[in-house]
């Protein structure tokens, strides 16, 4: 299986899949499609970890892979979907920029990352290629958080960033100890739950349709 993996550049393909799912969000407007994109992104991440685990036989990587799949690939999307259902009317994500402009800026971000990380980075992990992709995913997640108005888009942006951070950490270290990963996953669940509560509260307080974050500007002292 190892030879087959090397021959077909499987790992590179998987990581490019991660990047593409992140970029694809820019062109999607349905929030349920966003959640699906995140789900696929997490599956690919879990798959990547699985492949690395096959290549370097370390048992805790299998655990990490399963954990990622269970939490990010199943549990979180399920939870997000239930939030979206609660918010009822929220189907479309409002954005400040047009789709094409968002895609162009994402492309520029990726270019900047590739140019600047192209040289002088000493990578201890399995691929410097994956590191570039992970940084690009982090920045795209941040970019999504900036340009979308609704609170649920902010959560998804954060989750993409988190996937990116996880990937970056993984590409540099071959995975952290299981206990750390367990903590990170637990942290993430907590964040999403708290933000879900916040979002419902924002929606109720400002009685807006989309839990619009612009309303929070009034809170400034």
């Amino acid at each position: 299986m190892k030879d087959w993996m090397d021959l077909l550049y499987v790992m590179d393909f998987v990581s490019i899949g991660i990047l593409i799912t992140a970029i694809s969000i820019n062109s999607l407007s349905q929030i349920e499609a966003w959640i699906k994109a995140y789900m696929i992104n997490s599956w690919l991440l879990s798959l990547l970890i699985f492949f690395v685990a096959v290549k370097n036989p370390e048992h805790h990587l299998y655990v990490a892979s399963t954990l990622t799949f269970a939490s990010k690939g199943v549990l979180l999307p399920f939870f997000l979907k239930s939030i979206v259902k609660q918010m009822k009317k929220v189907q479309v994500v409002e954005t400040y920029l047009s789709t094409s402009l968002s895609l162009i800026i994402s492309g520029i971000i990726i270019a900047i990352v590739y140019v600047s990380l192209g040289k002088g980075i000493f990578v201890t992990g399995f691929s410097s290629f994956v590191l570039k992709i992970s940084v690009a995913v982090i920045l795209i997640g941040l970019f999504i958080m900036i340009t979308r108005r609704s609170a649920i888009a902010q959560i998804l942006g954060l989750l993409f960033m988190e996937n990116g951070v996880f990937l970056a950490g993984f590409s540099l270290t071959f995975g952290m100890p299981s206990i750390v990963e367990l903590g990170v996953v637990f942290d993430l669940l907590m964040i999403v739950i708290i933000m879900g509560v916040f979002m419902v509260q924002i929606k109720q307080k400002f009685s807006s349709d989309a839990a619009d974050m612009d309303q929070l500007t009034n809170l400034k002292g």
Partner: protein
Amino acid sequence: MISFFYLGIILFLAGAIASLIFNQRANGFAYILTSTGAVCFAIFGVLLLSSPPVSILSISTTPILEFVFRGDTISGFFILVISVVTFSVSIYSIGYTKGMANKGILGFLLSIFIISMYAVVLSGNIITFLISWETMSIVSYFLVVFDTQEKSAKAGFIYGLMTHVGVVFIIVLFLILYKYTGHMDFAGIKAAAGNLPDAVKTIIFIFAIIGFGTKAGIVPLHTWLPEAHPAAPSNISSLMSGVMIKVGIYGILRIVVDILGVGPEWWGTAIIIIGAVTSVLGIMYATVERDIKRLLAYCSVENIGIILLGIGTSMVLASNGLYKLSAIAMTAGLYHTLNHAVYKGLLFLSAGSLVHSTHTKNLEEMGGLIKLMPYTAFFFLIGSVSICALPFFNGFVSEWLTYQSLLSNFQAMSATAKVAAPLGGAALAFSGALAVACFVKAFGIPFLGLPRSHHATGAKESSLPMLVGMAILALLCLVLGIFPGHTIKLFSPAVSSLAGIEYVFPSGKGVIHLSKTAADLSPLAILVAMIAIFMAAVVLIRIIGGKSKTSYRDSWDCGISSLTPRMQYTATAHTNPFRRIFEKVYLPIRNVNSIYILKPLFLKSISYTNEIVPSFDKYLYNPITDFIYSISRKVKLLQSGSIHLYLGYILITLLLLLLFWF
């Protein structure tokens, strides 16, 4: 000996907890605990004064965080000062807090506040000192803003701000000391402090004056005093003014005199100048003040100045090698510290009684209270007489000592000392004169004459615990004034360790002999002489004038048919001459607005406003705050309130870092 320390701490903690538990009921119990604790600490302080330095307690958690409490004669003296005031305030509070909202929390904070002051004075290393100091500051902040009905929030803000500025200097000072001596422990620092470079010593000196001076209230860092003291409940302002600002003095003594030792002469001269300016300006603003608690707060500023005059003189004399005279000056400073704690505590307590029963702090609305509150009036009078430094009360002795030591500065070799000290003496004389004017007003306006408003007519005498609390301090004013010899003997070990020589104060039975200045003082003899003269005068009048007859007539009313209390001499009128004479200092804003029916003869009405904005606020603090505000407004443009923009800042920063860093 140390058992008294533990007993005291346990009693104070028990008092703190008890007042929380008994919140609105049986609050007296908690205060009885704290006053007993104060007695324990007073004994502990006296024992410390007569013993070599002792290590009390050391809790070591990690190498850096080590709590060390150590007592020596200097801390013993300050513990005594704190305990004396605390004892009376605790008893006073039993009556004062009756019917007050949240009094449980007040009692709790009060106990913690006192413990923290003891902890500051007993701290043996930097960390302990800083933590205790900050605890003291924070708890006293809560006490300042305790009274939510008044504008205490602003006062609290100013207090908190000034305290923080002060503590920054203190922390930097300690860091410098640690860097150059390599010790956290005060004993170690003191041993190594001799080798400090002169420049470093000077920086530490300046930082100590600014840092501790903010707490003590030297001009121009005193601005929080006239705000915070009136805002706090009166038992608290009594503690803050009587004791807490003395902890600032303790800091100056500990760092500058005890740890740094004898410095260059200009240090002492600088402190004399600061003391002179502080005392003169403090009493000048006190004189024109109409709010009784603000008046007392400004008066505290004046007294801090007098204490610093004593300490500064001591330092100058020590730099000139005149150690015996230096010890006398230090005695003056410490004695005044004790005296000021006693009579300012008394004055704030009796002012608190006034405010408590008249519900106003404005002197103009009081009047005639001597008939309604005779005991309070008597105690306030004793406090006023003491603070005016009239004979056979305690203020007299310490100010006399300060004069003597200032005037003895002519024995010093250097010219600056010869010039600075008499000028300091002149400043002291000037502030003494103004203090008399100030307290003639502070006593006369509220207590004499007729009630000026409905506030004064409904006044009632304070309850028994409040009177007892005041009576103890009033008695102490007299005792400290008549038996200075015994008192000085009590705290002379602290003087010895500060002045650096074993010095036994030359005093006999109630007589102070200052052989070096050729001046003696025996308050007891003065008292006897005064009584004898008084008796003789009474007898003479009787012999010459025969029996007198009292007859009652109406006052002459200038032809106006009825006199009203509003026509009485007011506090403003009383001090108007000072406002005119010292116009250049006060810079008053006067507005006379006349409305005529027919110019220029037929007046309809005249309105007159007169306001004094302290020059420090106008010329020092306002420009600073304006500057900070203008910067803040510019920075505020960044803060749009939009979360997207904030995230955008992060993204742009990250991209720029990626582009130009890697």
